[in-house]
């Protein structure tokens, strides 16, 4: 076979292998935000499994290498095995990707695991044949075809590229589904995603599984071509090369991953092939190659963090938007009558409604809630009950423990003591995502929109129980979840129009003003169809006129049976909309009752003045 054919087919196969691996990493890191510095070991595992599945028993070759397996399976079973191995290898890492661990700490754990596995493999001969690795790995179908022929080589290259194309279609299908959207939401802000019902551990594990499967497949394809499995080729630094490729290509854009695969792992190997090796001392050029990879990462993260091909904005709005009218007018003529104060059927509640009585159903209850931070008791034995269908206010001076109490109610913070009941059920030890799925949803004091999702996507991300919001549902495709999605978009657009935000449906949430972001957050929480809604300073930064309308809107939701708890500093809002109002000071409940009555109490007034 002539040299040129050999060279070109090798480039083709390596290109395909690198592309598949980069797509796996792009899905895992660029979309789901899981920083798996051990990515390369998934490729190594796939290659090893494909190797031992296609090799015969290790005694067959005179016993010069030892390994487990040796099943001599026909093609394509070794490749299937490689894919499965990559997917299964994800499972032991599940414990690292829960909520409690900082992302960079988890990344360290995965990096160290990669270093250690490499150490074990190169030292443990019976299982992996030590540093020598495996050789004589059979080419696929080598009994039927002649692996040395040019046709076979070209065919192998074509198969590798075809698999890369299939992988691209697969990750795109997954990414453009509701499941992909919730992965991106998790990437942008995991704590908020969890508060909306996302099981972070399960989601991240599923991202590890899909990425790991692709990495495993790429390893299988590679080992069948080069017929070798060398543990030295899978050091931790090889993972960094793939990260460089995905970062340079563009995070969150699978086309970027393809471009990165061509530019970095493939391009670097090929470009430096033409540098004469006589330059510098031995090993000079390879060392500089690594320096260049490192420099590429740092320079790109600094000067163009979005990569060559940035993430594409998803335009989902279906409604043809009229030119935006003035904001106030928009609200007044809104399609959603509930935001229009004039038609509000509700009488104002201030002053004359009683404290929740025995005849009212308690939706949410906290008993003796305690939270300490390194000895400081932020919440110190607070008990409160929230009646169904009421808009309860929660006020108090700074540091009174309002937000901490809210975080414990929603499960964002674990309690140090006390119990929480939702409609009579003890939910004290339930994680936040399970509380959200039971209808207990919160918003956050600090901006918590998913920045790189559009406003419409932010809203859609909160819809519970979407058909396409699982890996399986996403794989079934748009035909499976599309109709339902259209209905959700319709609902979200109605809500957006009602809040006067219709024209921003396809804008990135991160680009909005502070007040607009608050609205996005409230609308997103409403999309979750909560039975109990906890709002942490929802009116901060919102125009007073709009705040009035939102207040009336919230009362209507309460009239419909929703229970709302609102932390707010603006006492005028409390006067007008909240009844009862709970006053907290120094971690305890100081008083409770209608706002007008509270204003008469000297201890309440004093707590505010001295607080």
């Amino acid at each position: 076979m002539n040299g040129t054919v050999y060279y070109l087919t090798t480039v083709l196969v390596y290109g395909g292998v690198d592309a598949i691996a980069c797509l796996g990493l792009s899905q895992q890191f660029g979309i789901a935000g899981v920083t798996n510095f051990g990515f390369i070991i998934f490729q190594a595992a796939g290659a090893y499994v494909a190797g031992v599945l296609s090799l015969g028993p290790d005694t067959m070759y005179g016993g010069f290498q030892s390994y487990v397996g040796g099943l001599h399976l026909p093609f394509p079973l070794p490749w299937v095995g490689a894919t499965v191995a990559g997917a299964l290898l994800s499972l032991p890492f599940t414990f690292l990707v829960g909520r409690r661990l900082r992302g960079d700490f988890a990344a360290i754990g995965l990096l160290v695991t990669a270093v250690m596995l490499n150490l074990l493999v190169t030292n443990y001969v019976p299982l992996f044949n030590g540093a020598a690795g495996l050789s004589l790995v059979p080419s696929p179908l080598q009994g039927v075809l002649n692996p040395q022929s040019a046709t076979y080589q070209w065919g192998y290259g074509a198969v590798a590229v075809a698999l890369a194309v299939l992988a691209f279609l697969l990750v795109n299908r997954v990414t453009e589904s509701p499941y992909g959207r919730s992965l991106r939401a998790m990437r942008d802000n995991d704590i908020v995603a969890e508060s909306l019902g996302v099981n972070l551990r399960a989601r991240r594990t599923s991202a590890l599984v899909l990425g790991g499967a692709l990495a495993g497949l790429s390893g299988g394809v590679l080992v069948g071509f080069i017929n070798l499995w060398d543990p030295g080729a899978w050091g931790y630094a090889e993972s960094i090369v793939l990260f460089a490729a995905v970062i340079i290509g563009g995070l969150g854009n699978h086309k970027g991953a393809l471009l990165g695969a061509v530019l970095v792992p493939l391009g670097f190997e090929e470009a430096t092939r033409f540098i004469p090796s006589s330059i510098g001392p031995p090993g000079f050029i390879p060392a500089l190659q690594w320096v260049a990879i490192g420099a590429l990462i740092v320079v790109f993260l600094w000067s163009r963090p979005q990569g060559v091909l940035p993430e594409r904005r998803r335009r989902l709005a279906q409604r043809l938007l009229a030119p935006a009218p003035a904001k106030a007018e928009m609200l007044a003529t809104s399609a959603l009558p509930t935001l229009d104060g004039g038609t509000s059927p509700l009488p104002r509640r201030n002053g004359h409604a009683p404290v929740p009585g025995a005849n009212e159903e308690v939706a949410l209850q906290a008993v003796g809630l305690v939270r300490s931070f390194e000895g400081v008791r932020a919440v110190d034995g607070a008990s409160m009950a929230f009646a169904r269908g009421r808009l309860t206010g929660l006020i108090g001076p700074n540091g009174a423990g309002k937000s901490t109490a809210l975080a414990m109610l929603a499960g964002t913070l674990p309690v140090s003591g006390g119990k929480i009941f939702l409609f009579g059920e003890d939910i004290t030890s339930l994680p936040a995502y399970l509380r959200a799925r039971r209808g207990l949803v919160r918003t956050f004091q600090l901006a918590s929109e998913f920045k790189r999702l559009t406003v419409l996507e932010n809203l859609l991300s909160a819809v519970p129980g979407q058909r396409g919001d699982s890996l399986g549902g996403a794989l079934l495709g748009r035909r499976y979840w599309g109709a339902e999605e259209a209905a959700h978009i319709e609902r979200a657009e109605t809500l957006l129009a009602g809040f006067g935000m219709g024209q921003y449906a396809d804008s990135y949430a991160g680009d909005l003003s502070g007040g607009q972001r608050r609205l996005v957050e409230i609308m997103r929480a409403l999309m979750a169809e909560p039975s109990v809604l906890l709002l942490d300073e929802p009116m901060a930064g919102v125009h007073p006129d709009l705040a009035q309308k939102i207040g009336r809107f919230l009362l209507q939701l309460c009239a419909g049976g929703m229970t709302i708890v609102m932390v707010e500093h603006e006492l005028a809002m409390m006067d007008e909309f909240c009844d009862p109002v709970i006053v907290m000071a120094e971690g305890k409940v100081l008083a409770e009752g209608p706002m007008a009555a509270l204003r008469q109490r000297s201890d309440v007034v004093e707590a505010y003045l001295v607080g």
Partner: protein
Amino acid sequence: MSVFVASIGYGLVAAAVLAIASVGFTLQFAVTNVLNLAFAAVMITSAYVAYVVNASGVSVWLALVPAVAAGAVLSVLLNQVVYTPFQRRRASPIALVIVSLGMTLIIEYATQAAAGPNNVSYSMAQGPEAGVGAFQLTVVQYVIIGTSLALMAGTHLLMTYTRLGKSMRATAANRDLARACGIRTARVVTATWCISGAFCGLAGVVFAMNSGSFGATSADLFLVLILAAVFLGGPGEAYGAMLGAAVIGIATEVSASVVQPDYKDVVAFVVLLAMLARRPSGILGAPT
């Protein structure tokens, strides 16, 4: 039994080397919240500086001075030129870890490009062995242990009694609040990176002395030990790093005598993963 006793001795030396590095690493994390994975790369580069000076005929103990200076300068530059600008742009901790890995590749392989791929060693006398029974260490090893103990004591005095040490602790606890209280946090951060960089340079040389010969990538596995020691004690906790280094250093050497030398670092790895999974704030850190 004698093997076990001997391994305790080696463990003490390993712990001494590890303690210098771990305290440096954890101080950097404490004041800047950066997991500087390029720490081991700076160590090795400093070790090479000592090697170049040593090869020109100067005693390796004198060569410590330029090596420690190199560690300090490189670390300050790393923080000032790379990490701080990224943090000013509010880059996520993950982005900084990726940047620090990029810097690892740059520093480590630039050193290799300059020094070549072969391992080198210092020309130095190890001195006679001394000890009781199976517990035998060379003079150099005693010196390493003594230096490390002195440094730990110095760290304690610095953190407890000096204005700089108190400012460092305040900056570590809450940087914005510290600045609001009139502490010049930028200076404190630079001073911390300078001190921890000096620790890093010193750790590089004693690491190289202790391993006999070294190459540009020799400290990659040592980084795992540093991380294990730091996370065992609690990231950002100087005393925690000392405790962690003592435990990890002795545990790895003892396991080398009990199991097999090739797998001695596995102990550190298991400890690190267990801490990450169960208590990422470490033994001395506050639980989350």
